[in-house]
């Protein structure tokens, strides 16, 4: 009786362990620290199987905000970073954590807000004027507040508008410290304005009464870059496999795949890799 009970417990434990084992025994894989926009928009779901079919390399994506993704790589926990905040990426290179940075693709940010538009900015092409109005009318604004690429872009736009947001913020300005999707969910719930990358906005399903209020300003440009983590800093970095992912992304083939990815007929990312590194 005692033996039967013990063997039941043991086989349960062993059974569970064997379930985990095959998943852990994967080779030829790299870890890419990237942003929520590239994952949530479905780009990786479309692109990675094609890359895998060609090279046999399994790409494991950790989707974080740009700041966090760069920090993950700074600790040596990723082989490649694929993010969207050029100034932060260049600092990352300058600190010696990355080898070279390559432009991969771009799209743009959009200012999203409630259809009732309490600040009265719908249709504006001037994001500075729109933000100035939001601040003047103290209309609810949701900020990512998480050091992501979109958060950095938002801060730069306030600065462009001549507003020192750290000093000007009041109860109307809500820093949530969460991802793009959470920010959109909250903006929807509180009838607030929020800056979003277009890819996440297009693939987002809980829009409720949110619509795009400002788009098409050249300052809302959103550039993505890819960097191999410096194997000189961390010998554990899978140099060859990571480099082949970088090379493929900026190759004509990879660029074509990016251009082909569409949701409802809309292209989400526009490839713009050059041969030389920036």
């Amino acid at each position: 009786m005692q033996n039967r009970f013990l063997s039941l417990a043991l086989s349960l434990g062993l059974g569970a362990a064997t379930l985990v084992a095959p998943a852990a025994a994967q080779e030829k894989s790299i870890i890419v620290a990237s942003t929520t926009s590239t994952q949530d928009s479905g780009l990786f779901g479309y692109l990675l199987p094609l890359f895998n079919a060609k090279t046999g390399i399994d790409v494991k994506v950790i989707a974080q905000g740009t700041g966090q993704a760069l920090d993950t790589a700074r600790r040596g926990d990723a082989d490649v970073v694929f993010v969207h905040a050029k100034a932060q990426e260049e600092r990352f290179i300058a600190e010696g954590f990355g080898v070279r940075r390559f432009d991969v693709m771009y799209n743009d940010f959009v200012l999203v807000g409630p259809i009732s538009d309490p600040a009265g900015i719908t249709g504006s092409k001037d994001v500075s004027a729109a933000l100035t109005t939001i601040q003047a009318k103290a209309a609810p604004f949701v900020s990512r507040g998480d050091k992501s690429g979109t958060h950095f872009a938002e801060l730069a736009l306030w600065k462009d508008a001549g507003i020192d947001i750290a000093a000007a913020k009041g109860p109307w300005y809500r820093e949530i410290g969460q991802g793009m999707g959470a920010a959109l969910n909250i903006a929807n719930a509180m009838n607030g304005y929020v800056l979003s990358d277009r890819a996440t906005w297009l693939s987002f399903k809980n829009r409720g009464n949110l619509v795009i209020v400002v788009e098409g300003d050249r300052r809302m440009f959103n550039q993505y870059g890819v960097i191999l983590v410096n194997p000189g800093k961390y010998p554990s970095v899978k140099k060859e496999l990571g480099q082949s992912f970088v090379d493929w992304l900026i190759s004509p083939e990879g660029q074509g795949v990016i251009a082909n990815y569409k949701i409802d007929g809309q292209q989400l990312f526009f490839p713009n890799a050059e041969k030389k590194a920036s």
Partner: protein
Amino acid sequence: MPSGERFSGGAKINFFSAWDLVVSGNPTLMAIVRLSLAVSLTAAVIAGAVGMPLGASLALTRFPGRATLIVLCNAMMGLPPVVVGLAVYLLLSRSGPLGAMGILFTPAAMIVAQTILIVPIIAALTRQTVEDLWSEYSDELNSMEVGPVGRVATLLWDARYSLMTTLLAGFGRAIAEVGAVMIVGGNIDGFTRTMTTSIALETSKGDLPLAMGLGLVLICIVLAINAAAWVARLWSERQAG
């Protein structure tokens, strides 16, 4: 191999369509369920193997600082998963002390985090159970001059049915938490994505009905496991006569 597949594209997804995914054996969802169960069951078994003898020893031995240890153990039942996740992350990171193992962002790291999370729960509940039982058994075991190891083993064995509930409490905590597995697993598609991290992901994508549906599926799975444990208990009680 990342599947990249979305569960479904329809707008009107609710519990029933999430349940359809289970019934129809949607491979993406099945893999996620399998991983969740494998990680949390393994963590519960390891935590049981560590926590039960620990709890029983705490109940049966007297030493200075015992009361402090008991209070500490009880308090650690409330460890925030996100703190455990962060601690394990820093430990397993390439720039951390155990970085050379290279298990960050793997299921193994998730098992480590969940085990740490639930050992205090299992140890604390076991201590209470065994201590209560000890008041019944102390005369008998003292007169038979059973040694400390024998006492621990005897009491653990005789408390096995109560301890099954203890184990289920630990398992329940493990499979329900999202903070630790998100940090140390990274929510990698097809590799470290669990039920709870999927629910968090679908919520962030704004697909609230699918997220809720997956939540109900998770609850049903936990319910099924508890029912199975109950049946196993009835069966083994009957065997024991």
